[in-house]
C-alpha cells in the first residue's frame, strides 16, 4: 500500500497529465474485458509492463512482486473454475472433452477441456485488467486521481471522504509507528507475553490517539472558516498533450483490431 504510494510519486510517468493516463488505462481495460481475446490480452499485459518498467522506471522485480499479490488469489480461483465437483449420477456416460476424472463414492471430480479453456481465458483477462489498473496506480498519485474525480463531478461527499481517509491512513500509520518505537525501546516485544500486551496497548491508544487527532484537525479546519465541508481549489494541471492522445488512440485501435482478428477462436 505504502510502497505503491511511493512508486507512483517517483515514477517518471507521474508528470504526465493524469487524464491521459486514466483514459489509457480505463479504455484499454474496457477493450480487454469486452473482447476477451487471450492473445490481445497478452499483448496488453506486455504493453502495460513495458510502460511501467521502462517508461516509468519501476524496478522489474518490484513490479513482478506486486503482480504476485493478485496472481495468487487468481490462481486459487481459476483452479476452482477448472475443477468441477458434482454427484457421480449427474455425470453423463459419454463425455467427449473430459481431461481427467476421479470418482470417490458418489462424488465426481472432473476436469473438462472447456473448463480449462474458461479458466485460462479468465486468468488472462483478470491479470491483464490488473495490469491496466496497476499502470494507473503505479504512475498516478492518488491525489491526482481524486483531483480528476472532483473534476468529473463525482459527488462531493465521496471526494471529501476519500481525501480525509487517505490523509488519515498516514496520520494513523505515523501514530502507530511512534507507539511501536516507544514500546520497542522499552522492551515491549521481547517475548510472547509482552508482545500481546504491547499489541493491546497499540490498539487502544491508536484508536484514542487518532480520534484525538481527528478532533484537532476538525478544529483546525473550523479555524479557517470551514463548516464541515472540504472546499479546496484544484490546481489546474498541464494541458492534455494531443500527441499522447493520438498515441493512445493508435494503441487502442491496434488492440481492437488484434482482438477482432484473434477473437474468433476464443470469444465466448
Amino acid at each position, binding site marked *: 500500500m505504502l510502497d505503491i*504510494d511511493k512508486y507512483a*510519486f517517483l515514477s517518471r510517468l507521474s508528470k504526465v497529465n493524469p487524464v491521459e493516463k486514466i483514459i489509457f488505462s480505463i479504455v484499454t481495460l474496457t477493450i480487454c474485458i469486452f473482447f476477451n481475446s487471450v492473445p490481445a490480452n497478452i499483448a496488453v499485459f506486455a504493453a502495460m509492463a513495458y510502460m511501467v518498467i521502462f517508461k516509468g522506471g519501476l524496478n522489474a522485480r518490484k513490479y513482478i512482486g506486486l503482480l504476485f499479490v493478485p496472481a495468487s488469489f487468481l490462481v486459487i480461483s481459476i483452479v476452482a473454475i477448472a475443477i468441477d465437483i458434482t454427484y457421480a449420477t449427474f455425470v453423463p456416460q459419454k463425455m467427449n472433452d473430459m481431461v481427467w476424472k476421479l470418482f470417490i463414492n458418489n462424488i465426481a471430480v472432473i476436469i473438462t477441456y472447456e473448463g480449462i479453456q474458461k479458466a485460462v481465458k479468465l486468468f488472462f483477462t483478470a491479470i491483464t485488467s490488473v495490469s491496466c489498473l496497476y499502470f494507473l496506480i503505479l504512475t498516478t*498519485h*492518488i*491525489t491526482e486521481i*481524486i*483531483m480528476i474525480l472532483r473534476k468529473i463531478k463525482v459527488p462531493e461527499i465521496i471526494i471529501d471522504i476519500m*481525501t*480525509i481517509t*487517505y*490523509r488519515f491512513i*498516514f*496520520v494513523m500509520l*505515523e501514530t502507530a509507528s511512534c507507539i511501536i518505537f516507544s514500546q520497542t525501546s522499552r522492551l515491549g516485544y521481547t517475548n510472547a507475553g509482552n508482545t500481546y500486551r504491547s499489541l493491546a496497548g497499540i490498539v487502544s491508544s491508536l484508536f484514542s490517539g487518532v480520534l484525538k*487527532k481527528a478532533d*484537532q*484537525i476538525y*478544529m*483546525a*479546519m*473550523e*479555524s*479557517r*472558516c*470551514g*463548516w464541515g465541508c*472540504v*472546499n*479546496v*481549489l*484544484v*490546481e*489546474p494541471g498541464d494541458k492534455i498533450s494531443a500527441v499522447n492522445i493520438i498515441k493512445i488512440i493508435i494503441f487502442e485501435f491496434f488492440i481492437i483490431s488484434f482482438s477482432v482478428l484473434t477473437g474468433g477462436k476464443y470469444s465466448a
Partner: protein
Amino acid sequence: MRRFIERTQLPIANNEKDMGQPIIDLKNIDYIYPDGTHALKSINLKIYGGEKIVFLGSNGAGKSTLFLIFNGLLKPLRGEFFYNQKRVDYNRSSLMELRKNVGIVFQDPETQIFSSNVFEEVSFGPMNLKLHEDIVKQRVEDSLKKVCMFEHRKKPVHFLSYGQKKRVSIAGVLAMKPEVIIFDEPMSCLDPVNAKNMTELFNELNGKGKTILLSTHDIDFAYSWADRIVVMKDGEIIKQGDAEDVFKDRELLVFADLEVPWLVDMYFALCEKGIIKHCGRIPRSKQELLALLSPGDI
C-alpha cells in the same frame, strides 16, 4: 543601529501615545474545560493593530486556550470579546468575520493539515471565504512563495519534512490574509535555520501591518523580539508590558517560572564589574550590547 532604536522605542510609544481603538478587546473572560480545569480566569486584554506580542508562561498556563478564544474556537463561559469594537456573539456570521481576520497556526502541523496535497491544503481557507477561483489561486501561490514551498506545491503532504509541513500550515493561514496571526509555539521542533527564517517571516508580516501574537518558551527570542510581553500563570495574566519592564522584575520571573534572558544577566554583570555604565536602557540584542562595549564604533 538606528533601526534597533526605532524598534525598541515602539513599545514606549504603545504605552504612552494613543494607539486608537484596540483590535482585540477581552473583558473578564473566563473559560472552564469540560473536565473542570479552570483554564482562564477573568482575562482582560487589549491588543492594538500592528503589535508584536509574546505570551510567556509555563505549560498549562492557559496560553493555548487563550489563542483558541481569539479565533472563536472556544466560547468563553463569561466575559465579552470585542473584535474591532464589534462584540463577537458566536453566531455563524460573526465567527466568519472573526476567523477571516484572526488566523491561527497550531503548534503541530500534523493536526492542522487535512488534505493530502499541498496546493489543495493551502487553498482551503481562501476557498471558504468564497473568493473567486483566480484570486484563490493567486493567494495560494503567493503564500506558498512567501514560505518557500512553491516548488513543492504538487507534493503529497506525507512526503514533506516536519519543517516543510510547518511552513505549509503557515501558508494555509497566510492565504486567508488575516489582520492578526497567532502562532502557538512556532519555534518548537524547528532547527536553528528554520527558526531564523521564521523570525524573519514574523518581521516581514509585521512590517506589512499584521498583528503577530505568539507563545514561546524561548526567553531570549521573546526578549529581543516582542513589543509587548504578556506573562500568564494558572489562567491569569500576571503581568504585561514591554520586554525590559517584564524582565527587570525578578520576583515576577521567579513567580512565573521564567528564566532571565542572558542579555539582561550579562548587562547587569558587566555594569557591576564596571565594564560598562548604566545607560538607562537594557540592550535588546547582541549587537546593541556589543555596541555598548565599544562605544567608539557607533
